[in-house]
């Protein structure tokens, strides 16, 4: 599995030309249990292994002040003991059966994965059913896991400048919506949430009607159906969780944040623009724009800022899939002896160039070509297949959209790209964050 950082850069790549597809829509079978749990199966015997992905519709967007970080913390607690398999037994049983697991939490989802030899599939069903139906949360486990998550939070901040500035930028860009706090939560909330908070969270969100399961590998549909009936179907559905109704008010002017970290070598800049949710029509144009700006050495920002002007030492754009309207990030690290101000100007100049003059047909075609090759790269493993199919189901509302994405991308025109740049990548809609070793002060300050 990936770290948070690699998750960020993991582009969910799409099929552009269906004629080449190794996996087609018909290869994915799906069924729904009576309790509302949807299960998708992809039979693939290329290796004698399989995986099980469980996507839960719960992430930091479902939290509120006081319990920030609880979704992620819960991800940890799911490994700490249930009824049949007590503390430590989830991992011990799985590993003794030749399996391994991991999990990740984002602003929108909590995702669990088991990777196992295909003949161990029933053990996986038993382990998962036990912790979904009968998680046993104890005070003792709660306290030791608090230490683990505190360490996870601090090692992220210690080793990654990106995380240090990201939390500041998000915090400023959102003043109403829960996307404003970091997924890992505030330190004081990690230290203080209660056992009751956790119990309530499990009951509300870990209900079968709030999950999507994907199984890919050396398995048979009928076998999966039977196992799902036996182990998952008896788990009762729960009432729909509370809707996240908060809409972030329109941003009406640029916001700026600054953070100091002494070990930073050259200034880091992160700019974030409010953009619509994944299911909005502009998703595809924004996604292509992100690649035109920063994917590959010949992309606009890399070519201009790193190679030609030598103003930046590294950079990226990041346009995450999102259930609610979120942010489009443009981020860069300054070259030696380049100020934050110079770097920011150069970034904005390139963004404005797209707004004023648009992009070329050649650039648009380049992105489409790359998406095709990247699609194959993702679909080369049973793991990539399961994760891609499940992510589509969660963010686009239907895994079948994975297979119609080519049409959606092909529909995007040069005018669309210029229009979305103009609509969203404007000053009044952005938050600019600077991370530097210098203190935020100078002689001219009052």
């Amino acid at each position: 599995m990936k770290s948070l950082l690699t998750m960020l850069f993991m582009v969910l790549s799409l099929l552009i030309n269906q004629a080449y597809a190794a996996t087609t829509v018909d290869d994915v079978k799906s069924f729904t249990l009576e309790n509302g749990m949807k299960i998708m199966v992809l039979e693939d015997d290329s290796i004698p292994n399989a995986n099980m992905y469980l996507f839960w519709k719960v992430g930091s967007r479902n939290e509120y002040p006081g319990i920030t970080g609880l979704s992620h913390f819960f991800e940890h607690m799911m490994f700490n003991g249930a009824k049949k398999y007590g503390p430590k037994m989830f991992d011990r049983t799985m590993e003794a059966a030749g399996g391994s697991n991991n999990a990740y939490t984002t602003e929108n989802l909590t995702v669990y994965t088991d990777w196992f030899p295909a003949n161990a599939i029933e053990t996986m069903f038993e382990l998962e059913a036990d912790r979904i139906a009968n998680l046993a949360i104890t005070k003792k486990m709660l306290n030791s896991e608090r230490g683990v998550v505190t360490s996870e939070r601090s090692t992220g901040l210690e080793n990654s400048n990106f995380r240090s500035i990201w939390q500041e930028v998000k915090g400023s860009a959102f003043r109403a919506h829960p996307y404003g706090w970091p997924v890992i939560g505030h330190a004081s909330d990690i230290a203080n949430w209660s056992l009751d908070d956790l119990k309530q969270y499990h009951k509300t969100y870990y209900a079968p009607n709030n999950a999507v399961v994907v199984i890919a590998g050396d398995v048979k549909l009928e076998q999966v159906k039977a196992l799902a009936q036996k182990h998952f179907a008896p788990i009762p559905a729960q009432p729909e969780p509370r809707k996240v109704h908060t809409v972030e008010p329109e941003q009406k002017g640029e916001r700026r944040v600054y953070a100091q970290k002494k070990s930073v070598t050259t200034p880091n800049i992160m700019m974030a623009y409010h953009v619509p949710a994944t299911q909005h029509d502009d998703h595809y144009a924004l996604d292509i724009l992100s690649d035109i700006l920063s994917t590959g050495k010949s992309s606009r920002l890399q070519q201009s800022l790193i190679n030609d002007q030598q103003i930046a030492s590294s950079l990226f754009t990041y346009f995450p899939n999102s259930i609610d309207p979120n942010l489009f990030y443009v981020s860069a690290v300054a070259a030696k002896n380049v100020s934050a101000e110079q770097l920011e100007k150069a970034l904005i100049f390139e963004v404005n160039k797209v707004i004023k003059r648009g992009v070329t047909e050649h650039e648009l075609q380049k992105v489409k070509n790359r998406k095709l090759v990247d699609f194959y790269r993702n679909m080369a493993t049973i793991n990539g297949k399961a994760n891609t199919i499940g992510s589509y189901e969660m963010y686009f509302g239907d895994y079948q959209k994975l297979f119609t994405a080519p049409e959606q991308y092909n529909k995007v025109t040069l005018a669309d790209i210029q229009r979305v740049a103009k609509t969203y990548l404007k000053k009044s809609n952005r938050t600019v964050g600077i991370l530097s070793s210098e203190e935020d002060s100078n002689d001219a300050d009052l």
Partner: protein
Amino acid sequence: MMRIFNLKTVWLCLVSTIFTSQAFAAYTLPEYQKYTLDNGLTIYLMEQKEVPLIDISVVIKAGAIEDKSQAGLNYFTAKNLTLGTKLLTKTELDQSMDFIGANIFSSANLEFSTVGASFASKDSEQVMPVLRDIIISPRFADTEFTKLQTRHLLNLEQRKESPSSVINNYFNRLVFGEQGYGSVIAGNRQSVAKLTLAQIQQHHHKWYQPSNTAVIVVGDFDSKIMKQRLQSLFSNWKNHSKLAPTQVTKTTKKPKTNVLLVNKEDATESTFLIGGKGISRSNADRVGLSVINTILGARFTSWLNDELRVNAGLTYGARSRFSSYSQDGSFAISTFTKTKTTIEAMDLALKTYARLWEKGLDEKTLASAKAYVKGQFPPKFETSSQLASLLVNMYGYQFDETYINTFEEQVNSLTLAKSKQLISKYFPQDNLQFVVIGKAEEIKDQIAKYGEVSIVNIKDTGFKTE
């Protein structure tokens, strides 16, 4: 935001290779062809048809151990190759490859360099000649050389921002000294600033010869056509001189424990490695040791992770690893914890490690570890690029598929009695080497109990150990 144990890529993956010692029942390496062209160039071909992609890796047997006083020379040579060819400027090269979604890369480790490409199989005719030119007739333009040098010098400073990115460099220095496997692949600011384009060209000319190189092709192609293509691309490449690669002499065990404290002024946690000498890749006991190490520190329920993370809540993850090279290797325990609990975590790590001798393994845990390494094996060799990496390591580190094909047998044959012998023979027990990166002021007095402490500053150039 997740649990740590498949996080090999994040935490301490700086060892040159990813190929870990695990196999699956009845797994054998897919069929491949290996042959040599008249000029001595070794070719590996492995057809894999699942997706229409091809991965090519070209391995040149020259690594950082050849750098001597010019630290970073070999690495920087590899990095300069992808900055254009005699036919294409850097911009032309970047644009043409980006347009078809092809990835071109170059990298280097202690013992060899790799240049490669990943691309759609329909683009073979376009990509392969470019890859050939990158290796045989790179552009070596002055302006691009200087730009990359400036970026690389900054990058060397930036690496020091993150303790987990650099701690292995300090540790290798303690275990292997300044040369051989203690060489620093990417060099240091002083050495890299002195490198010239002429030196890079000279290094390239010397080492990049067909008899010192293998071309590894894995993916969706027809071997017959691929052979012809390779023949026409590479058969005119000539050797010009005999090479005398540096022979690494095995290091001896350190005469005493060293504790290297690397001060990071704004650290809020301490990152540490504890260990010593390990084993070479060709060591006959490598498979058995990997099973034992799985129990100690290479899976979620391992002793180290269970004690330091699950029971004590001191860290997000604790692990142990063998890093093996062709002639020698190291072993280390690694974790991190907030500054205040540094000693508590180090003590607990050492106490847990001592269980290897004090209690040893038990039958149930051994059986579980065997099942685990076998079950987790097939996904490691699922894609063309993973299989290409395996062949790269086989050529670069000089081992053959026997290692893969007998893996199951070797895993199964490990008994408790044998594990006891392996533990006493290979896991370093005394004169351990310590590296701690953290806030020196707050921990320097307490860590003196482990041995003589040397303090350096993380911002100092390179990786001095005293």
